[in-house]
């Protein structure tokens, strides 16, 4: 019980503290985001130039999964729609690169056989938007835990559908022998690939920022709190949510296309329900409903995994304990915690 009172005291205290500070400074969450993005802009290239190419690849994976987490945050954090099937978008996006490249090299299906990235990316976004539109239209008829389960069910359907297609490797996955070709740049250069991912992350953050602060975003956020009131005001909450779900899915599909280009190997496993769970954990760990939270969550999740698994094959044990402790004692995820630590109210 005590740990539930403590944050309240703290935040009351901190509010008083910060009132003065606020007038002089930007809100801490903005500063954290600025520091984090600065870090991502400088350190990974630095790692590359000092001969640590492996760390660049870790950060590339991190930025890609951050984009996926940011996209999930749009519906989960701001809209209160707990999607347990977002890994399906990631996978579909990756296969939207893998399948055309496979045919470009091995023949058949001339109409989609290409290594052109300007075809892959619209394809990834388009397929995911369509998939989100269809499954969202059905899923959004449900609420709460039913929504969690129905999105999971659709995710599993895509998973098993891909497993059943022998041509694309089934369970064994598909090696992407050539990365998407883009005008002027080559994704085969690890630094270029990272730059593309980083810029994409910036764009994703900017897009979500604009959306949640628009009139559309207000409705989505308000519907999370009180759907009846939104309806009474004459808004069609269902349509707004569906649009948010489609935007989120498309963005995640784009991240999937990047992931396919990064790993050059894709398998149905990347859309397994545990992967959807991991995306959720990144968002919650970082702080659902805070703009930069998902990036923090993804970073902590992936870096801990990387560092801990180096020490012991039993790394899941401390990792699991940490997850439990984080839930029990750290409210509002890392960004909520950091805000309290820095003495400010969250600005969501």
């Amino acid at each position: 019980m005590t740990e539930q009172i403590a944050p309240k005291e703290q935040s009351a205290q901190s509010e008083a503290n910060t009132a003065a500070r606020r007038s002089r400074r930007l809100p801490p969450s903005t500063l954290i985001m600025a520091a984090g993005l600065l870090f991502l802009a400088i350190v990974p290239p630095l790692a590359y130039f000092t001969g640590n190419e492996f760390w660049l690849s870790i950060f590339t994976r991190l930025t890609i999964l951050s984009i996926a987490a940011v996209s999930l945050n749009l519906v989960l954090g701001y809209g209160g729609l707990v999607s347990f099937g977002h890994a399906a978008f990631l996978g579909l996006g990756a296969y939207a690169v893998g399948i055309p490249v496979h045919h470009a090299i091995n023949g058949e299906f001339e109409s989609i056989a290409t290594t052109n990235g300007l075809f892959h990316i619209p394809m990834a976004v388009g397929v995911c938007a369509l998939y989100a539109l269809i499954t969202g239209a059905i899923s959004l008829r449900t609420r709460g835990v039913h929504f969690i389960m129905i999105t999971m069910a659709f995710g599993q359907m895509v998973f098993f559908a891909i497993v059943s297609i022998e041509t694309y490797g089934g369970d064994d996955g598909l090696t992407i022998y050539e990365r998407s070709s883009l005008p002027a740049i080559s994704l085969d250069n690890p630094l270029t690939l990272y730059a593309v991912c980083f810029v994409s992350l910036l764009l994703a953050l900017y897009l979500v920022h604009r959306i949640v602060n628009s009139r559309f975003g207000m409705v989505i956020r308000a519907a999370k709190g009180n759907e009846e009131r939104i309806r009474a005001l004459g808004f069609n909450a269902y349509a707004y949510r569906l649009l948010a779900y489609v935007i989120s899915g498309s963005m995640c599909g784009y991240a999937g296309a990047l992931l396919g280009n990064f790993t050059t190997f894709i398998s149905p496993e990347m859309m397994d329900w545990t992967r959807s769970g991991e995306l959720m954990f990144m968002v919650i760990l970082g702080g659902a409903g805070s703009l930069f939270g998902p990036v923090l969550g993804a970073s902590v999740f992936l870096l801990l995994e990387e560092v801990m698994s180096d020490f012991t094959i039993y790394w899941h044990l401390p990792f699991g304990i940490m997850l439990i402790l984080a839930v029990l004692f750290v409210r509002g995820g890392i960004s909520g915690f950091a805000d309290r630590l820095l003495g400010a109210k969250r600005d969501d």
Partner: protein
Amino acid sequence: MKLMNSRAAIFAVAGLAMTTSGAVAADTVKIGFVTTLTTPAAVIGKDMQDAANLAMAHIGGKMGGKKVDLIFEDDGFRPEGGKQKTDKLVKQDDVDFVTGFIWSHVLLASRKSVLDAGKFLISANAGPSPVAGKLCHKNFFSTSWQNDQTPMAMGEVLNQKGVKSLYIMAPNYAAGKNMVAGVKRTFKGKILGVDFTKWGKDAQLDFSAELAKAKASGAEGIWVFYPGKAGGAFIKQYQQAGLQGKIPLYTSFTVDAIALPKLQKANLSGVLGSENTQQWSPDMDNAANKKFVGDFKKKHGRYPSFYAAQAYDAIMLIKSAVDAVKGDTKNMDGMRAAMKSANYASVRGKYTYGNNHMPIQNFYLRKVVKDVDGNWTTKITKTVYTNHQDVYAKDCKM
């Protein structure tokens, strides 16, 4: 103030990351070993790890006069996991060789990372058809076999026994499909049914529906490929379903030194006398094998599996290459030529390499027996194939 601290902390972490990696000592030979150390399949990975460590002890931790750094990584029984760890070995640890690889799909996912980086890739188990055929590569070698070969030998044995019809079951992944293709290629009787079951970290282990179908099919024999823990589960259910003594069971890579101790502990004596094919057996009579099996049993109190034998061979093959160039690991051509000659004391006896760098070797029929101490093991009863080459070698332009 607090803000400054947190930012300082972030840079400290970054600094730490920089210092822990990189900086390679040039006077060591680095070998990455990718295998499964978590999930229930870790029992296979552990066997390979023990064997590789034993090989290291036997060579005094040195190759070509240089110290050897052997780095184990866990693939988590996942193609994606294996690829990530392989990337790490190649990029961060800058290894000279990557070996291990139990699973065909993990090898297929990881091979590009190793070969693109210009390193040697030595499979100590997996032998999917593409790497033997179209995707063969000058820097890829195997100390095991191509997947199809062992079941092909079994198909031959079934013909000799006069089995007229067969029911087939295997896991639904690259190796499973190769194995089924292998047995179908040589078996001359009728195939009455094929079931592929879910594989991976949440593999299907309850075969009730499939066994009922096999029984109803009226086949004269059942052939299965279930490596690791699924093998034990399958054999139990085969007995529980009352098929023992009615439809004989033939296996490939299912009844081995991994499964036998567990089956013995649970006293599933029906497996005694059953037959399978393999390129190696613990009772093979050559000096290298006696030393390997003897020391392995002394150290770990159990028989090594064929996985272990191949892992031991992989280290020895690498040693022969590094010795040949006197520790100059930059000399890729010299090491490649040395490995191509297979000039080392393999525990399976002498073998040669084909154009695709897959072994051309003998395959034997093995029978499950009790040894003098009462432990269950396998014993060679006859030679099925002499100097057998895989069928995909002709697709390899090398």
